[in-house]
């Protein structure tokens, strides 16, 4: 607990919250622009389309945002060359867990704010009915798991390599892979495709009427396996990070 408190203390003036809110701000601006002036058919399926749009937006941006977050948390120790000293004060595992937990808390706040804003915005636009609580909770739960797997992967890289360019380029490449996978499939076993796999809403575009129909996806066995894979990645990246960090020379 104390180590976790110290993590938050360390990032107090490092603008970590500010940079995360700025990223959220970009998403909000995008939402304000992309969802403005909805047509009648868009209002009818508004809550479903919101889930779909958010998944696309997060699929694209979250790999990079998670790499930024992990880099900000890990880089402070590289810059001060403090790993070795910290290890003499606390067990290495404790330090790793504190960093992972600190990032997880920031991630939860980020996703909660995102959900709150977009639901409020949906009401302001006049979407019909209310958001389907079950699907929204499930969607955000799965999105959280996907983002967590990405964060743990990036934390592992950011802590292992002092050169933050490596982890940030991998995050950027992850965004690109996630975006491009969206064009060819509805699921992916790659860590960056987790948000795509966990998108609960699918869509069908009618070429003649130019109307999009949204529907809740029915998962095939392979798609279900891709969703399960998200949790496997969480465990694998956490365990790998824990193992590699506690055994590094610092």
């Amino acid at each position: 607990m104390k180590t976790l408190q110290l993590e938050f203390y360390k990032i107090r003036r490092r603008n970590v919250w500010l940079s995360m809110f700025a990223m959220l701000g970009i998403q909000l601006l995008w939402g304000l622009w992309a969802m403005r002036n909805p047509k009648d058919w868009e209002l009818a399926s508004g809550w479903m389309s919101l889930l779909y749009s958010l998944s696309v937006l997060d699929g694209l941006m979250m790999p990079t945002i998670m790499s930024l977050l992990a880099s900000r948390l890990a880089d402070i120790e590289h810059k001060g060359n403090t790993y070795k000293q910290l290890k003499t004060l606390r067990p290495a595992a404790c330090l790793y867990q504190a960093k992972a937990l600190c990032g997880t808390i920031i991630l939860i706040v980020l996703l909660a704010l995102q959900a709150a804003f977009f639901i409020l915005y949906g009401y302001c636009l006049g979407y019909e009915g209310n958001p389907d609580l079950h699907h929204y909770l499930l969607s955000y739960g799965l999105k959280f798991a996907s983002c967590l797997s990405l964060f743990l992967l990036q934390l592992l890289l950011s802590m292992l390599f002092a050169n933050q360019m490596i982890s940030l380029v991998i995050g950027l490449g992850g965004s690109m892979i996630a975006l491009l996978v969206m064009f060819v499939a509805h699921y992916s076993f790659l860590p960056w495709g987790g948000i795509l796999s966990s998108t609960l809403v699918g869509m069908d575009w009618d070429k003649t009427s130019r109307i999009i129909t949204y529907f809740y996806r029915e998962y095939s066995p392979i798609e279900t396996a891709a969703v399960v894979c998200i949790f496997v990645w969480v465990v694998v990246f956490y365990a790998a990070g824990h193992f590699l960090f506690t055994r590094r020379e610092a």
Partner: protein
Amino acid sequence: MTALQKTISAERIKLRRSPVWLAFFGLPLISAFFGTNNYRMNQGILKSEWLSLWTQHSLFLCFFFMPALIGTYCSYLWRLEHSRNNWNSFLTAPVSHFALYFGKLFQGVLMTILGNAWVFLLYFVCGKLCGLTTPVPKAALSWFLCGTLGGIVVCCIQLTLSMWIRSFAIPIGIALAGGIGGLLITNKGLGCFYPYSLYPIGMRANNPNMELPAGQFLSGCVVYILICCAVSVWKLKRGEG
């Protein structure tokens, strides 16, 4: 050896054996692979051959990834100065502040040119692999030149930001946000006034008519480049990064 040559040489030594070129090599490769794949799958709708292929290659690369990639490189160029007390030795080097800045700018611009050339080489190779028999449009040279100029603007902005901000990651976040913001601003028709839009405008990304408001574009580029250079040198003269 002049002061400019000395600083360029010093920057080259700092970058020696750095894996930074891998990013410039790898990310456009992913984009080209998926862009070509998308083109092949939709050849029924995308009938304009080279132009259609270019839309698939350029859209996401120009708005989302290239600004962040250039941002990463610029952050890397200033990374050494931001660690420990290297600002002291950097600023006390026996060359002018302009020469110090120019050394960095030269490397950034060189990488932007090479990165863009790689994007176009991939475009050409992918077009041939797709079996396009018509010649590459002559306008592609203009896309390359204008795109490179727009890329240099992004490079100048990012160099200034990375010099100012001590964090490695935050300027990259700004570049990502700037690129995405560029899509919105370009759609409003104000792209030439926004630095991160100049690259996609020059590359004619998301531009079905492939038109370029040449006067506005060139003046936008020149103004931003001059402002960034002036601000950076002024900041260096104040003796801090």
